[in-house]
């Protein structure tokens, strides 16, 4: 992650018509996937395309790294598009008369990059999207999903740090869309671009977005993490919008886990542990080592048996196969773990230290309602690089875009 990163673009947009002024403002942090979602005609694409001035706002300013995009000359704007902002389109926008390779390197070609360098960059980008060795094919020979991979590769080949994606997967059928989302996420993990992503598919928005802005009639009605939007819809519109969400996909372990108050250390004697479990009415207890690293789960019955036999060690009662998941694991992946046995699933951090436990009950509650689980007072924001949170140096990056009408 870049420490110097101070990319913060805030776009504020208002319609100056007499009906009323709307504001739509947002920051995008470096390395973030920022999703704009709304029904057609809600202004989401308009805003996206304003960022690189494919749509020219009639009034206002856009700032990028402290530079005023709207004040740029045609020449500067061209450089901005060449070097800083790449784009992926819903209708792909590929050139049917060119090969895959020549499409991918189009951005470099207009920059005047030499053929040899272009070829290399093109092959690299094609490799990223899983199309290695297909550079000589014609665009017309490819399926829709493959074509959009080319579109993605074209945006990657130029290595701009910002990626604008205008409903890139909307034209694809659902199965392929899923593939592309996964592909995109894995590529993003590698290349770490700053992404502004427009979609009308809520599942897509919640799956991909670190933060999501919901738009209606040219206005942002809510901006927040996927969790915030699901849990605290700002108004009725958002509520209805998110009604049909598949919680299994969006919610993660940390949203339904119960924090662990009682653990058994591996060196504790069975009697001590049993006493503790009875005291708190626990059927299961996570067993950890001295550093709170998760080892397994012990069942009350097993511990009791050891205690009866006056065993000194807890070891043999520990089910070391007990399931554990990361805090970002989706409920959909956790669900199958409960199918065979009703053993709570441990939630661990990167160091394997126990953070909480998911019970069958809390999982089902998380799947069916927007009701809060016990520890929901905590923030569940997915981790977003936040080092460029607003600070003094950045205040100049505020952007104001005003536009009349839609």
């Amino acid at each position, binding site marked *: 992650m870049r420490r110097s990163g101070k990319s913060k673009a805030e776009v504020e947009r208002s319609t100056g018509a007499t009906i009323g002024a709307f504001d739509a403002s947002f920051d995008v942090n470096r390395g973030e996937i920022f999703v704009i979602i709304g029904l057609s005609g809600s202004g989401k694409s308009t805003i996206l395309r304003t960022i*690189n001035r494919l749509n020219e706002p009639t009034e206002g300013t856009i700032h990028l790294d402290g530079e005023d995009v709207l004040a740029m000359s045609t020449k500067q704007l061209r450089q901005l*598009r060449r070097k800083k902002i790449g*784009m992926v389109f819903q209708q792909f*926008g*590929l050139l049917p008369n060119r090969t895959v390779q020549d499409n991918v390197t*189009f*951005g470099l070609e207009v*920059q005047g990059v030499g053929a040899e360098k272009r070829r290399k960059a093109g092959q690299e980008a094609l490799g990223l999207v899983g199309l290695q060795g297909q550079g000589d094919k014609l665009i017309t020979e490819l399926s829709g999903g493959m074509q959009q991979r080319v579109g993605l590769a074209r945006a990657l080949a130029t290595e701009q740090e910002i990626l604008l994606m205008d409903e890139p997967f909307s034209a694809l059928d659902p199965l392929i869309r899923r593939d592309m989302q996964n592909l995109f996420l894995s590529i993003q993990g590698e290349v770490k671009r700053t992404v502004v992503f427009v979609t009308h598919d809520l599942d897509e928005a919640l799956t991909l977005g670190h933060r999501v802005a919901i738009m209606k009639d040219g206005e942002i009605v809510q901006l927040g993490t996927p969790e915030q939007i699901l849990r605290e819809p700002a108004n009725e519109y958002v509520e209805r919008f998110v009604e049909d969400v598949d919680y299994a996909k969006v919610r993660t372990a940390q949203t339904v886990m119960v924090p662990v108050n009682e653990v058994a250390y591996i060196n504790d004697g069975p009697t001590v542990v049993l006493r503790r479990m009875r005291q708190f009415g626990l059927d299961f207890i996570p067993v950890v080592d001295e550093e709170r690293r998760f080892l397994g789960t012990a069942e009350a019955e097993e511990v009791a048996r050891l205690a009866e036999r006056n065993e000194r060690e807890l070891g043999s009662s520990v089910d070391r196969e007990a399931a554990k998941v990361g805090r970002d694991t989706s409920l959909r992946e956790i669900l199958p773990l409960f199918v065979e046995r009703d053993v709570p699933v441990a939630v661990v951090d990167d160091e394997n230290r126990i953070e909480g436990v998911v019970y069958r009950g809390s999982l089902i509650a998380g799947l069916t309602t927007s009701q809060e689980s016990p520890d929901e007072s905590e923030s569940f924001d997915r981790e977003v690089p936040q080092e460029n949170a607003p600070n003094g140096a950045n205040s100049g990056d505020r952007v104001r875009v005003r536009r009349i009408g839609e």
Partner: protein
Amino acid sequence: MQENLVPRIPLGQYAENVIDYITDTFEGFFDVVQDGLDGFVSAFEALLNFPPELVMIAILAAIAFYFAGWRVAVFAILGSLLILGLDLWEDTMLTLALVLSSTVVALAIGIPLGILAVQSRSIEAVVKPALDIMQTMPAFVYLVPMIILLGLGSGPALVATVIFAMPPAVRLTMLGIQQVPRNTVEAAHAFGATRGQTLLKVELPQALSTIMAGVNQVIMLALSMVVIAALVGAGGLGEVVVRGLGQLNVGTAFEGGVGIVIVAIYLDRVTRRLGQKRKKGGKGGK
């Protein structure tokens, strides 16, 4: 009484005055233009007459084979032999020269004009009605001043043919560029392509097959002018027909007509699939 409703407008007189004025003022200039145009057509004619007939037939057949397949190649050979048999070879070459030279001029003016007209609304507003006039004004009307300005010969024939044949080049160039999917143009802009780059790398390649359809039409229209061109002394197959007409000689006119038909079929078949041929070639070449 109706004669008095609107007084007689001496529009014809005005036109005559303008032509007179131009003739007087720019006489030297038009002499040069006339020589240039004549020379241009003659150059094509010389080029076509340079190879011996049989070699030329082979060349025509090879071109037909490359662009349109073996059937057209066979047709080219048989047609050429028929023309030879009718003793019309030189006339045919002259007609071909006239068609090709006026096509070259029409395209050289028409395609850039079409490109410009797409870029600018005001140019389009001027070009479109001008094209309508060029296509609907009877050729004889502008042949007369052409003769006055350029004398008899292939010069006025070339100009008249260009005027008549150019509109499809402009129109189909415009159409082709306008039909280019907006998203590809937009993508080019989004990646920082200049206007020129967008035109050369995105718009023209995708408009090519439509532009080529325009080329085909230009050629066919140019060919349809050969008889009229013969009236101003351009010679060629048109002249054979005109001669037949003047002498009421059905045979001569018919022979000339057959020659024109053969040339027409050949040119049409060869140029018809120019745009598509490229695509196919690209795929096959892989």
